[in-house]
């Protein structure tokens, strides 16, 4: 329970059904390093007070649990490492996979609970034929969070509940008012929850002392011609247009980052187009193992609506993705998630240097 309206309503719905509940708020990041009174977008004392008020109102116990260490190890450090290696991180997927549906599930079982419910917008349902737990998009597609949940194991999905999956945001706010929750009109939290208001991830990493050492390098075009210099590859992600300090008549984009050479490769918009890539650490949902090519709609970032693609398994949990139509800015480090309509088939992590034409 973050103290926001979604997790509050999810908990209140279950309480109204008469389910036995324990509320947990995760302390993920402490007061920002070196500053006494600033907090990230999550985990402020005010947020926890809001969560506690909901639990009191709905009549179940509530606890704040310290998960800072896990969050640092499993989410923040990988996030920092991704930037340093020229990848585009996906911290929200890792937070679901390793924090909410791993650490938190373990702690819930430790106190006698069987499942973990969250305020995610996605639908879980059991496949009667295979017994597996399927993941579907939320009914409100503007709120759908299934992309961030693709990497949960079948066991993790079976232990999860998403009470909001079939509701729209308006219905959720309506319910919050019906339950007389104090935070019914609390504004939406967006972006990286652990970065403070009015700050970007670079400022965050710097204050946490996690910014990789800045090493200058060359900015080159795709034929290797040196166009200029950059201060650090950590300042760039694939597809980025702003901040490329190279005079050019055309709009320049980051095509790829070559961490070994400390090189940033830039080029025109159409050079960003690729029609294949490789994904690793794949996860499949209706089935455990992918044994042949499968087609569907592939999303290569959280705000991507999806494009037709075929995925063919490779050894070692890898797979090749071929898009019917070339895609812009296939960014290493991002999750690629395959859908059949609203059903999530699975996905994997885009491998650096694998995007080709």
């Amino acid at each position, binding site marked *: 329970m973050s103290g926001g309206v979604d997790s509050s309503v999810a908990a209140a719905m279950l309480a109204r059904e008469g389910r036995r509940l324990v509320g947990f708020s995760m302390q993920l990041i402490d007061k920002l390093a070196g500053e006494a009174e600033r907090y990230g977008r999550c985990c402020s004392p005010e947020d926890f007070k809001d969560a506690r008020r909901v639990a009191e109102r709905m009549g179940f116990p509530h606890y*704040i649990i310290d998960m800072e260490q896990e969050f640092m190890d499993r989410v923040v450090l990988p996030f920092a490492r991704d930037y340093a290696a020229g990848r585009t991180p996906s911290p929200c997927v890792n937070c679901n996979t390793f924090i909410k549906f791993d650490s938190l599930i373990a702690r819930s079982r*430790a106190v006698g609970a069987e499942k973990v419910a969250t305020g995610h917008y996605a639908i879980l349902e059991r496949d009667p034929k295979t017994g597996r737990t399927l993941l579907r998009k939320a009914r409100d597609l503007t709120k759908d969070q299934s992309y961030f949940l693709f990497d949960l194991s079948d066991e993790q999905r079976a232990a999860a509940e998403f009470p909001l999956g079939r509701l729209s945001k308006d219905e959720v706010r309506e319910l919050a008012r019906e339950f007389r929750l104090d935070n019914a009109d609390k504004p939406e939290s967006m972006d990286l929850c652990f970065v403070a208001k009015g700050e970007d991830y670079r400022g965050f990493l710097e204050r946490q002392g996690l910014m990789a050492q800045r090493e200058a390098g060359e900015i080159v075009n795709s034929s290797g011609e040196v166009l200029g210099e950059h201060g650090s590859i950590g300042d760039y992600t694939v597809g980025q247009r702003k901040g490329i300090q190279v005079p050019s008549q055309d709009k320049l984009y980051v095509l790829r980052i070559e961490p070994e050479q400390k090189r940033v490769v830039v080029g025109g918009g159409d050079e960003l187009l690729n029609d294949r890539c490789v994904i690793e650490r794949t996860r499949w949902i209706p089935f455990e193992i992918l044994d042949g090519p499968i087609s569907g709609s592939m999303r290569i970032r959280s705000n991507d609506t999806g494009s037709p693609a075929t995925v063919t398994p490779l050894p070692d949990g890898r797979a090749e993705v071929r898009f019917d139509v070339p895609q812009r800015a296939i960014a290493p480090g991002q999750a690629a998630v395959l859908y059949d309509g609203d059903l999530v088939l699975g996905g994997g992590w885009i491998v650096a240097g694998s995007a080709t034409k």
Partner: protein
Amino acid sequence: MMIHADTQRVYLDHNATSPVRPEVLETMQRILAGPGGNPSSMHSEGRAARKQIEDARLQVAGLTGAKPSEVVFTSGGSEAISAAVRGVSDRAPTDRRRIVISATEHSAVHEAAKHAVRRGMLVVTVPCGPDGRVDVERFKTQLSGDDVALAALHWANNETGVLQPLEEVGRACRLAGIPFLVDAVQAAGKMPIDPREVFADMMAISGHKLGGPQGTGALIVREGITLAPLVSGGAQEKRRRGGTEAVCAIAGFGVAAALTAQRMKEEVGRLVRLRARLETRLREIFPDVRFHAQTSQRLPNTTNFALPGVPGETLVIALDLEGFAVSTGSACASGAVEPSHVLLAMGLSEEEARSSLRVSTGWSTTGDDIDRFLDVLPRVVGQVRKGLGR
């Protein structure tokens, strides 16, 4: 998972707060229902209220062996400590800039000292040994300069119950002419606490640890010590704390102090026996249990132990859901648990410190409470270990 009704709950967290004693409740109800009256008023109601406060002052003095005129009522232990630290550092001669404290002080002392840093003081923290006692020789060494404004040492530790070498430190302070503050919040009511015996110039105690109401406490200030006032505004509490007194709460505090003093001898024996039963059985049930500072001189009511692989925070939650109130020892205002600075100072690893549980008994604890706790604990610990996969 079962959430028990409050009546069936077992409360084993007296070091956090002790439930209000029935006699205290009765006194407070009587006063609240009475005519009221401001203790500073001349009329009959005012005089009655004044008498209630002065009676309480006698009772609190009686618990400590101080003179009634040395008792200054405050809103609690933290305020008493803050009043002492501020009161001394604001009036300290300019060449006395150091405050010497022990590593295992309550956060009230650490924070008050930190605050004094902003007023130009320097805080020296003296470490403790693995037994939880402050290193006396190092403490005395720190007192040897001419620049110490204040020394502070707690009587008993809130997390481990360990008693500190007050007399030695206090004697050294007195010889060096250094004001000596003793935080006796945890010791009060659980053992005799006479400030004279330990050469304390100031001593802080709290009402709610005795079964009095929350929001009461006292600073015992030895005759002849002058402090800067904490709250200006009136002549109350000898100008040390202005403002109309919380008559009803102070009277409740007085009753709690009187009862505690009166029953101390038999109560100490009873609590020691309860703890011996608890610790013996814990050792039998969990051969891998680690008691902290078990061989040190301790308060009669406090047990601090660790079960390897069982995080204290999770165990406290699981036990709460089963109807048992215990603690990890160190709570923080936000509600999330940080590893105990006391256990870390005793040389425990962060992992060990996080696996610790504190059980603290008091006037309302029965043998049945201990037995029920021991009955439930193995199952809950098994559930926690299984859930966390340890």
